[in-house]
Every structure is written in structure tokens, then in C-alpha cells.
């Protein structure tokens, strides 16, 4: 029995870290990994998702629908920003850093000024369960399930739908895509919007478990960039193995040596991976194909 308890503890901690890494990185994987825009406003899309979720849930809307609203709101915000600002910067990666950083500052400070320094939160649904001497939050397991579903969903979307194929064609070979009649401007907007909506989803899903403050996006920023850098350009083949690897490292080090070493481990992994695999895990996995 002891072994089963230990195995479940390890699985729970791995799953918890994996879900956090996948969900916080997914939007960035689309916008940064795939589209190549270094999006420093990623945390603010997450913040937007969280705020809208909490606000709608507090108005009495059922939580899953509130979360959907949060994700959609972030997606809409993403599309608006893409149409007005980002689409001018596709060939100017350094400028896009400055622009998205500016957007991030404006959104954080704007939220602080309009909505104040903090907002009352909502409680975590679904209660807890026990295995052996330990009790666990049920919601955390749901997050793991959602993370896996989102990964599968994105794989299907990008590889088995017309939208996904058009989107990939637009990003890999924009002139050719245009020549065969794809509305590339629209594809860019929708893909960026998808990335923003995924970021918003992360905020929505984690909203019940964190402090609702204007700077909450910063909680996710390190983990998301680390995951995308380790993963490389492919949304599915990059993010999933990167998150799995990092989750093992983080859960093990945090359990063994505490939170500080967990953070240190993540950052050392990135340094090692960038040195050995500059294209990330997906670049390495797909090497045979190109």
C-alpha cells in the first residue's frame, strides 16, 4: 500500500506541474513558438481571462461558462490588438518586444487604475479527496484532464482542419499561401486570437486558485517562456514533451529540496536545452523530416 500511496503522490505532483506548464504555455506556444512574435503581453491575456471569469462567476454565472467567457474575452482582446498593432510588426521581431511590453504595462496599470489593487476571489470548486494519509484537491486533477484535452484538441485543430492547415501555411509560407487564395491577414488575426484565447483559458482555469490582482499574469510568465523555449516551434510536439520533462524536474526538486530549488531546476534546464538543442525539443524530434 505504501508504494501505491507514494506512486500516487508522485503522479499528482507531476500532473499538477504538467498541467500548469501546459496551460500557461499553450497560448505562448501559438503566438511565440509558431508565429514568432515575442509576446511580453502574454501574462496580460492570462490576467484578462482570470478577471472576466471571476467577474462573471460573481454575477452568478455557472463557473464553466464564466471560464469560457474569460477565454473568449482574452481572444477578442487578442484579435483587436493584432488588427491595430501587432500586424504591423510581423517582420520586426525586436520592435514587437517593445510594443508587446508596452501593451503589457498599459493593461496592468489600466486594470490597477480602473479596478483597484485587488478583487475578491472565488473559491475552488469540487472539494478534496484522500489517498492514504494525504488529501488532495480534486480540481487539480481536473486541470490535468483539461491540459491533456487542450493538447489533443490543438493537435487535431492544426493537423486535421482546414483552419489549421491554412494557418500553418500562412505562417510558414505567407506569399505562397496568398497565391493559392488564402486570406492571410485573416489567418494571422485568427491564429493570434487563438493564442490569446488559450492564454485567457489558463487565467480562467487558475482564477479560483490564485490572488486576483492586476499583476497576476507575472505568475505564469517564467513557466510559460521556459516551456516554449524548451519545446521549440511545434505547438503539440514541442509543448507536450517540454512540459512533461520540466514537470518531472520541478516536482522532484520541489519535493526534495523545496520551492527555491524547483525554480532553480527549471532555469538550469532551459540553459542546458538552449545550449544543446537550440531549436528546442520539437526541432530535435522533427529533425528527420526537414
Amino acid at each position, binding site marked *: 500500500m505504501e508504494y501505491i500511496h507514494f506512486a500516487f503522490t508522485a503522479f499528482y505532483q507531476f500532473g499538477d506541474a504538467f498541467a*500548469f506548464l501546459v496551460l500557461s504555455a499553450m497560448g505562448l506556444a501559438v503566438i511565440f513558438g509558431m508565429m514568432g512574435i515575442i509576446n511580453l503581453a502574454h501574462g496580460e491575456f492570462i490576467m484578462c481571462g482570470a478577471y472576466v471569469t471571476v467577474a462573471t462567476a460573481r454575477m452568478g454565472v455557472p463557473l464553466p461558462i464564466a471560464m469560457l467567457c474569460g477565454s473568449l474575452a482574452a481572444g477578442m482582446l487578442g484579435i483587436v490588438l493584432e488588427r491595430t498593432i501587432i500586424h504591423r510588426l510581423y517582420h520586426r521581431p525586436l520592435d514587437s518586444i517593445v510594443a508587446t511590453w508596452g501593451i503589457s504595462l498599459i493593461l496592468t496599470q489600466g486594470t490597477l487604475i480602473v479596478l483597484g489593487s485587488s478583487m475578491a*476571489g472565488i*473559491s*475552488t470548486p469540487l472539494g478534496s479527496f484522500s489517498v492514504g494519509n494525504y488529501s488532495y484537491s480534486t480540481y487539480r486533477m481536473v486541470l490535468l484532464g483539461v491540459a491533456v484535452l487542450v493538447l489533443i484538441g490543438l493537435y487535431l485543430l492544426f493537423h486535421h482542419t482546414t483552419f489549421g492547415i491554412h494557418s500553418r501555411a500562412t505562417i510558414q509560407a505567407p506569399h505562397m499561401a496568398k497565391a493559392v487564395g488564402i486570406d492571410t491577414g485573416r489567418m494571422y488575426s485568427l491564429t493570434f486570437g487563438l493564442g490569446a484565447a488559450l492564454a485567457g483559458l489558463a487565467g480562467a482555469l487558475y482564477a479560483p486558485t490564485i490572488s486576483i490582482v492586476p499583476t497576476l499574469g*507575472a*505568475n505564469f510568465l517564467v513557466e510559460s517562456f521556459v516551456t516554449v523555449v524548451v519545446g521549440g516551434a511545434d505547438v503539440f510536439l514541442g509543448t507536450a514533451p517540454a512540459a512533461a520533462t520540466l514537470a518531472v524536474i520541478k516536482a522532484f526538486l520541489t519535493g526534495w529540496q523545496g*520551492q*527555491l530549488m524547483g*525554480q532553480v531546476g527549471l532555469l538550469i534546464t532551459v540553459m542546458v536545452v538552449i545550449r544543446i538543442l537550440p531549436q528546442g525539443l520539437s526541432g530535435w524530434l522533427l529533425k528527420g523530416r526537414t
Partner: protein
Amino acid sequence: MKYSTIQRTATLSTLLAGSLVTSASANDPIQIGVLEDQSGNFAAVTQVKVNAIELAAEEINAAGGIAGREVELVIYDTQSDDRRYQELMRRVLQRDQVDTVFAGFASSSREAYRPIVNQFDGLAFYNNQYEGGVCDANMIVTGAVPEQQFSTLIPWMMEEYGPNVYTIAADYNFGQISAEWVRQIVEEEGGEIVGEDFIPLGVSQFSQTIQNIQGEAPDFVVTLLVGSNQASYYEQAASANLGLPMASSVNVGQGYEHKRFAPPSLANMFVTTNFIEEVDTPEANAFVEKFYERFPDAPYVNQEAANSYISMYLYKQMVERADGSTDKEDLRAVIAEGDVCFDGPSGTVCLDPKSQHMSHNIFLAKVDENHEISFPETWENIEPYWLGENGCDLTQNDPSAQYTPSSPPNE
């Protein structure tokens, strides 16, 4: 060469002009610099400090100012960033030439700006509870310190719940030194520290920490968590049904987590604080009422708001007793008389001449499962005795240092 001479003359004349302006004539306003975090990780806690200072300044001005001079606030947003404190502390002392500064939330910020206050020989009020031990003639500390918060709280908790203690603390000077205090008191009382985890300020995910705590099965957990990120701990611990009593010197009293998080995540949290808005005394109620009347949108009136407000009146009293002088040494001569006291929101408090810290009435606040507050215990008039008993005496000399239980002043 010629240019530099001209330049030097120009600088000299600017300096002269500057000093002419600042050589206080009796009718110039008294300027008070206010450096507090109005944005960033700590803003949720510290915005009300600025409000409290504004409230006190308005009251003082309406009643004729300090020694007949109007109070003028010079307010900057330090953005929860230690480097901003350093820049802005230089700015208020050097360029704005304020008479005193009210500054700081995080202990890392205080230690970042303190050498600058020393360098310009300024006078700063630190209106925050903290890990204790600052023996510095340029600082007046009105927040509560470990002998007021931990020497009361930890023995009470051990008596109530048992001797095995797990500490989780923010990983910077505040958390590290506070944890040292907890460790020392637990050992003195015959208990045992079964685990300690120091958590970087950016961390907001606590599943593994929660499990580490469950693995050690302590009788209660001491939570010394700081900032909005770390405040996520309570909700996550509650949803994992950790169910252990918690003790803290910082939560509720400054972070009003019982208002920000949905019940029952803060249930069974015990905090020692010198003020929170639930304290039910006539003077506390009057202060809270006044505060909300002036700032109806304020999220909570916390202990730092009360301490900032009290500091304004202590400063007024000191300047007036020094015949209108704002010179640091004149004010310290007043403090040395040993009776600089104020009847304010948290009862009667006095400044201790040896350490320039403040005595406090300490309330033990308990949060129940509906996030209602009760006060199972109060300790009246606890002196900030530790520094003085261990050899810090600012009336004799000024080491401008911070001491900890493992490195006390007399060693």
C-alpha cells in the same frame, strides 16, 4: 577649463539658491516624502498607507498644521521595486529636500533605502510590522516587531494546538529572520520545528509544499507569506483540505486575505496585530469610520494604515515639542525624554528612546470558517524591548545596523 569653472559657479549658485529656498522660514510648509508601493506585487496591501497619511495630513492642516506650518506631502509610487526606493529616496532627500520621509513595505526595500537615509542623514519613518532588529538613529519604526508578535503568538499556539511547528516563509530577509525568531521561540518553549520551507516571492503554486507539510504532520503551520503571488497558498491549501491551524505575523493584519479569498480558506488563522478594522474599541471604530468616509473605496483598513496615521501625529507632536524645528537631532532629543506617546486607533502607544521603536497593544485575531474575526486574547502595552535589552541604545551611540537573534547587538 574655463567651461568647468563657469559650470562650477553655476552649480554653486544653484546650490545657494536651493539652500535659500529650503532654509525654513516659519511659513513654509513642512514637506513629508511618502514612498509607498502603489502598484506591483504589494500594492493591494500598501495603497491604504498612502490614504492614511493623506487623511492625517488633511486633519492636521484643518487644525492649523504642525507648529503653525502647513503639511505638504511629496508622494511617489515605488512600484514594489527595491531599486525605485533607492532612486526615490535620493530624490526626496536630495532634490525635494523634504523634512522627513514615510517609506517602505518590504524589509528588502527598507534595507535598500536605509544606507541612503544614513548618507544624507535624513529621518525616515518605517510604518510596517517587520522582523525586528534595526538599530539606527535615522529610523523611527512604528510597526510591531517579533517580541510583540511572536513572543505572544507562538507560545499561545503551542499551548492551544501542540508543540510541532512547520514554517513556510517568503525567501528574503523578512521571512528568513522571522523564521529564525519562530525557531528560537519554539525551542525555548520545548517544541520542535518539524519543517521549514522558504519560498521565492514569485511562486504562486503550492501543491508540493502542501504535501510536504502533510508529510510532517505538524500541529500548526506558521505562514510568513508576503505579496499577492504567495497569498494563493491559502486557497490551494484549503482546496487540498490541509485543515491545519495557521499562525502569522503578516496575514490578515496587513493583507486582509480573509476579505480577498472566499471562505473558508483562511479558517483557523491566528494573527497577532496591533490594529485591524475589526478591532472593536471606540478609538478604533472612530478611525475606521473616518477612513471610509474619506476613502469610501478603500478595500480594508489594515494595521499599516493605522501605524502610518499614528506616525503623522507622533511627528507633529515631536516637531511642536522641539519648538517647530524639523532637525533630526532636535527631534531625537524629544524622543529621548521618553514620553512621546499618542492615543490613537490602536490605543496608547509610545516611542522607546533606546531603539526608536514603538510600544503596542497586541490583539490576537482569529479567523473562523465564515471569515469572521474574533479576538480570543489581547496583550496590553508590550514594549519593543529586545533591542534595548541586548545593547542597542540610540541615545548613546548609533550603529545603523540590523540585528537578529543569532547576531544580537552586544556580541
